[in-house]
């Protein structure tokens, strides 16, 4: 009898129930989409921020970074003196270990660099240029059997490239900085020669011209093998730039970065097993003994700040939107129940108890709400997907935790929306209601 009445009411007052279902559906699809985006936006923004380049630099323990960016006519020359010792270099064939650390999955890309000076031109026209050897599309075979491909181009997403990027298969193919190419009169496909440190002549093929807006515009980028041959340093590199996905720093990470020894066992585990920039740096140092891994704070710190802001923004928007859609739903449910005063009056006049009437109305409303909610959930999945693809070009994966949240929302909102209206209506006298007030 109870279910007959419920389904009967549903069938008879289709359009009114449809309104409830529609509103609940809209609210749930909004909730699903926003929650889906909320849980995923951190990862997505993290990926996007990789365009700022490497956030970790690996250098040999004895070496320094000076002289690799600002070089003022020999002024800082002596700061990097003593660079001839072999221990001031990194062995190329051990770099795969960067992909073997605990957080290997978070290492998006890395590339080694070896800079050497070449002399271009003859006699009084001669000038020194910096030649940087690196990896372009190096495929590494890990002991685990996995293969990874890594190279310099994703680390330098702000470069504008004309022609082709370098390739590890073309030993003498190079990319020339825009200013240098203009100065030397090089175009795509030009072949030119330069003298290396030992005085040997080496010829190179211009495969690409890069414009970076920085010092790279005056430099040459080629294969690591070529740089090693020109510098007479087989199998070695000077530094490695690493781009890794990280978790924004917190108190624990800052204490750990200052002194990992100061942590308790438990804190240490928590720190080691979280993708903080300092723990990734620590793990790379473990994997490559004799190195120093320096977080590039310009990139790392800004990344954290922007990720936190974006996440907070989306969380707040989600919460406020959920609140609004919850209010809208319960508002509609209230309206829907209030207009049924006549029906309820009739039931009461026929001897139904308050409890029976309440149960009936609630069961009906909840049934409709869940039907609408289910459709809304599916629509929300679609919406989240649409947002992910159109903004980030990749899908937003709606976490399963969203389902119980959506169910809970429907339940709570419908109940809370129904109860005050029910209470008000049950107080009415059947005679008055049936008489038409």
């Amino acid at each position, binding site marked *: 009898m109870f279910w007959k009445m419920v389904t009967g009411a549903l069938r008879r007052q289709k359009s009114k129930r449809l309104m409830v279902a529609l509103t609940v559906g809209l609210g749930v699809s909004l909730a699903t989409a926003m929650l889906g985006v909320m849980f995923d936006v951190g990862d997505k923004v993290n990926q996007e921020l990789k365009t700022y380049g490497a956030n970790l630099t690996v250098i040999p323990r004895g070496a320094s970074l000076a002289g690799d960016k600002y070089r003022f006519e020999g002024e800082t020359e002596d700061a990097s003196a003593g660079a001839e010792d072999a221990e001031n270099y990194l062995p190329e064939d051990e770099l795969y270990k960067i992909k073997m650390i605990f957080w290997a999955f978070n290492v998006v890309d890395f590339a080694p660099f070896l800079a050497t000076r070449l002399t271009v031109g003859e006699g009084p026209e001669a000038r020194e240029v910096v030649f940087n050897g690196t990896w372009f599309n190096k495929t590494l075979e890990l002991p685990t059997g996995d293969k990874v491909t890594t190279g310099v181009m994703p680390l330098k997403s702000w470069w504008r490239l004309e022609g082709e990027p370098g390739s590890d298969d073309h030993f003498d193919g190079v990319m020339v900085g825009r200013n240098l190419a203009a100065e030397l009169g090089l175009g795509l496909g030009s072949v030119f020669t330069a003298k290396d440190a030992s005085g040997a002549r080496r010829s190179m093929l211009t495969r690409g011209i890069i414009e970076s807006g920085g010092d790279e515009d005056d430099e040459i980028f080629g294969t690591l093998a070529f740089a090693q041959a020109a510098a007479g340093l087989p199998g070695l590199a000077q530094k490695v730039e690493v781009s890794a996905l990280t978790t924004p720093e917190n108190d624990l990470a800052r204490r750990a970065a200052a002194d990992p020894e100061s942590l308790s066992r438990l804190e240490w585990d928590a720190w080691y097993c979280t993708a903080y920039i300092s723990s990734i740096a620590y793990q790379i140092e473990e994997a490559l003994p004799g190195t120093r891994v320096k977080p590039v704070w310009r990139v*790392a710190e800004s990344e954290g700040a922007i990720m936190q802001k974006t996440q907070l923004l989306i969380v707040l928007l989600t919460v406020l939107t959920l609140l609004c859609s919850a209010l809208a739903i319960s508002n509609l449910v209230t309206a*829907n129940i209030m207009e049924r005063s006549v029906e309820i009056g009739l039931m009461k006049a026929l001897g139904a108890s308050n409890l029976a009437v309440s149960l009936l109305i609630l069961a009906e409303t909840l049934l409709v709400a869940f039907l609408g909610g289910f459709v809304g959930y599916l629509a929300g999945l679609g919406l989240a997907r649409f947002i992910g693809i159109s903004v980030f070009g990749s899908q937003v994966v709606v976490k399963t935790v969203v389902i119980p949240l959506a169910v809970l929302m429907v339940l709570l909102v419908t109940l809370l929306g129904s109860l005050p209206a029910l209470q008000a209506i049950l107080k009415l006298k059947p005679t008055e209601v049936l008489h038409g007030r």
Partner: protein
Amino acid sequence: MGAKTALQGNRPFLFRMLASSLVRRRSRLLVALTGIAIGATVLLGLVTLCYDIPRQLSREFRSYGANLAFVPVGGALALDRGLLEKARAFLPQGELVGLTPFRYESVRSRMLPYTAVGTDFTEARKTSPFYRVEGAWPARPGEILVGGDVAERTGLGPGKTMPLDGRNSRRERYDQEFAVVGVVITGGVEDEFVFLSLSDMEAMTGEEGRVDLAEASLSAGKDELERIAGAIKAALPGVDARLVTQVTRSEETVLAKLTSLVYLVTAVVLTLTMICVATTMMTVVLERRREIGLKKALGADNRRVAREFLAEGLCLGIAGGLLGSALGLIFARVVSENVFGRALNPELFLIPLTVLVSALVTVVACLAPVRRAVDVEPALVLRGE
């Protein structure tokens, strides 16, 4: 004449009906008003945020450091400080976060060579917020910062002193003792430098006015930066203004994504909220079929009934829109203050726009059920189905 009196007599009646309908049905009115106000809150709140977020985010992105660099052009080895002050005039003050000069000198300390950097610490903190300083930033003359690697190698730190000596361009010797107040760590070349204030460096070397490089941080997009750089290059022949492409290009990419994320989310939320408002209005109107039937039975024609409902909807829309606008401003303020720590300046023209949209949505939402209701036979409705 007769038509005129009818019209005149009509107006007060319309208002009376309206007023009584609004008063009599207080609870239903409340439901409708709440629905509309929620819609308007979301509308104004989100649109205000949308207006503000790209600007706020662009400020956040300044944590990546300077996006415009001034370097000496052509053969010149250094910039003149006067020239830099002239270049400053080209930077829009409202968007300028900071302008930091840098001067580099080779110095020695206890026989070891170092690169000393003369800069303006107040500006450097603004243009390079990513500098991590252990200890304090120099505040008085004679105080310096040392880079993290220098500190590690030499054991220098806050509380220690560091003598610097060298020769200026006139080959005159200078030397002076400085107090180390902090260690700066960036993970870049700065870790190898010793930082002192530009005025200290000028006093020490006895050479004034020289600057090797200057960096400006502006909360402006790439196009505006290019325009500013072009204007400076054209007006001041001794200076080359360059965009720091790593920062500007990456910011362009990421900011575009974030902005479109916010826009898309806003569009989705707004559409759904407006449909919600419409369904609420429809429910409220639908249940009044009996009233419509009664009015028609009493001789009101379809247009009259429709007009009355639409006028009611319009009033509700305007009232809800105003209420929602006030709440929406609070909504936007809460988000802005919590996320960006800054109060936002609301665009006031959005308020009438919100009211207009609310009224429009309400009226349109009334239209469909009213049209269906007025087509109904009064007798059928009044009998109760």
